[in-house]
């Protein structure tokens, strides 16, 4: 299972090029820290206290379930009797103002996205976001439908992606464990390891293009194959760095025209989030 944390590593492109909201540079801050550290000699005591606070923060991630569709049902199963997320301290609350984690489970439509953004803005810092399921990650097969936004990370920053359609409750638990790991590392000021998501997409898309091209050569008049090939090629020209030794074919040079940007309620981080837009 590939659960990837959202922080880009050393070799990842800048967030603006990928067209995604990225808040990896955001430090973990608390006003109490600065006041305590101004007293000489207190930092040793604070270090012990900080460990205690970290332990508490990691094991009491309260979840705000932004459950819209099928993944919401599977998330309910994860919170119910068999898997029982409560034993990890992940209590579900129905209000954003008491929660640390927003778990976006399900398809987010153009009508719903401003509401999700507003609820995210209502959550107090520090906060994290988990995108559960293909629809919340990328829109999945509703990606090109007029009323669906292609992934919730075009509107709010995402820390952990849980792939699947829908993910099993065990995968939800794995994602929560990854988030706990990330919170722990963030509080300790250590770098967060990152899964190789761009390379995964490259592996997925390149063979498909070759297969479609062969199929189109066999039957040149098939409009469906031609459309699929065009769609795959447009999808491939993302702003990922190519792996060493891999070159783009000549017919894939033109980048995909940007989709119409989703306009969330706030213009803080989301205005630069539309796909393909370079500020």
């Amino acid at each position, binding site marked *: 299972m590939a659960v990837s944390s959202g922080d880009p590593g050393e070799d990842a492109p800048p967030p603006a090029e990928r067209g995604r909201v990225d808040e990896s540079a955001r430090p973990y801050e608390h006003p109490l820290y600065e006041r305590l550290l101004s007293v000489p000699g207190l930092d040793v005591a604070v270090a012990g206290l900080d460990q205690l606070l970290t332990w508490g923060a990691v094991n009491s991630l309260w979840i705000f*379930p*932004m*459950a*819209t*569709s*099928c993944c*919401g*049902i*599977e998330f*309910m*199963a994860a919170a*119910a*009797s*068999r898997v029982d997320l409560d034993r990890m301290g992940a209590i579900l609350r*129905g209000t954003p103002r008491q929660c640390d984690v927003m778990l976006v489970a*399900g*398809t987010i*439509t153009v*009508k*719903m996205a401003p*509401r999700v953004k507003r*609820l995210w803005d209502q959550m107090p810092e520090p906060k994290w976001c988990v995108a559960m399921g293909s629809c919340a990650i990328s829109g999945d*097969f*509703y990606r090109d*439908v*007029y*009323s*669906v936004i292609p992934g919730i990370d075009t509107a709010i920053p995402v820390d952990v992606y849980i792939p699947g*359609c*829908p993910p*099993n409750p065990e995968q939800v638990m794995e994602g929560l464990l990854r988030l706990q790991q990330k919170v722990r590392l963030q509080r300790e000021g250590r770098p967060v390891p990152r899964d190789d998501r761009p390379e995964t997409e490259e592996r997925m898309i390149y063979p498909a293009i070759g297969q479609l091209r062969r199929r189109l050569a066999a039957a040149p008049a098939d409009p*469906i194959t031609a459309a699929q090939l065009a769609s795959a090629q447009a999808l491939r020209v993302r702003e990922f760095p190519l792996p060493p030794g891999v070159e783009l074919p000549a017919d894939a040079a033109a980048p995909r025209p940007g989709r119409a940007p989703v306009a969330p309620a706030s213009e803080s981080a989301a205005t630069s989030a539309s796909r393909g837009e370079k500020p």
Partner: protein
Amino acid sequence: MAVSGSVASTGAGPRTRAPVPDPHLDLERYEADADLMTLSLGPQHPSTHGVFRVVLYLDGETIVKAVPHAGYLHRGVEKLCEKLSYSNVVPILDKNDYVAPMLNEQAACMAFERLMGVEVPIRARWLRTLLAELQRIASHLLALGTFAIDLGGALGGGTSVFMYCFRERELILDLFEELTGCRFHYNTHCIGGNRHDVPPGWPELVRAALATIEARFDAYLAMLEHPIFADRTRGVGTIDAGLALELGLSGPNLRASGVDHDLRRDAPYHVYDLLEVRVATDSGGDCWSRYKVRVDEIRESLRLVRLLLDDLPAGPLSSTKPLGVVSQFKATTGQVYVGIESPRGELGTWVIADARKATSPYRMKLRPPSLHAVAAIPYVLPGHTLSDAIAILGSLDPIMGEVDR
């Protein structure tokens, strides 16, 4: 809740003015002794069962008018189906009614089979009936659990019943996972039959799961049916038979209003004509009746699954070859409507074929039962208190995926 008005209107005494249960009430002309309060319930509210919004106009705590707003989960499914080939439509429709995906697949496959004149072998029809009844149990268990948790804040054992219902539901999802490899969104039906045959030992697993569910079922019903639950559901959200028929309600919501109508018996499909389906009805039309009908349907489905398991016939599972190319299935002309009895009511699929685009539907229209259940809200909610609104929403059991499509 901020209520401005006379003290008498908030006390226990008789109200000076009864609210008018009129869905088309003109609020400009409403002359209440207290100001109306507008409350937007949803689209993100745990008890609206998804992303659904009802704007409530409250006089004190009594609802004067309710205006539902849908469309927060509109995914353009019907339009999406027009550009997909017939065999690729089926897994898309899984996601419509995401509590009963088996029934969605069956509705689409039956419509396509009738459109193309494809025969379905008896073993596949038998297995489809079996899967539909298992899915009905799972769906009603989820409806029961969420209904209990909707009433659960002030109710002893509300969350417990939710936990128990999900425990039994997991047993059925395990069976499906054993058969198809997925917990839901199975994609196990194809045009002309089924894709996954019964693995060895599966009937014994089903029997064991059924025995477990049946043994535990009465225990948590006894936990649920106590005076508080009865007070909060009896006489609440009454829909009489005339209104139910006029709104196009179907399924348990219709049968709870006293209309004895079930497509499994009245317009049999699959192998329902070989079975005797005892249709559960109740005459109350209120939340209690809808709950009762669902409970009786779980019992009936348990019986039907046992019957079906005993005589699973041998033979081929599909009359068509496994999928090779997308143009395997073609329909050049005709239109077809197929309605089946999903756990929420009559799930209809209307397909129009056209020769210019023979490999995919020219137009596809779905008739979701939940949409009609939601349509009852402006007629039912006025006159009730805010807490009753939650109970009514839970008892109607709408699934937003198929309301908005």
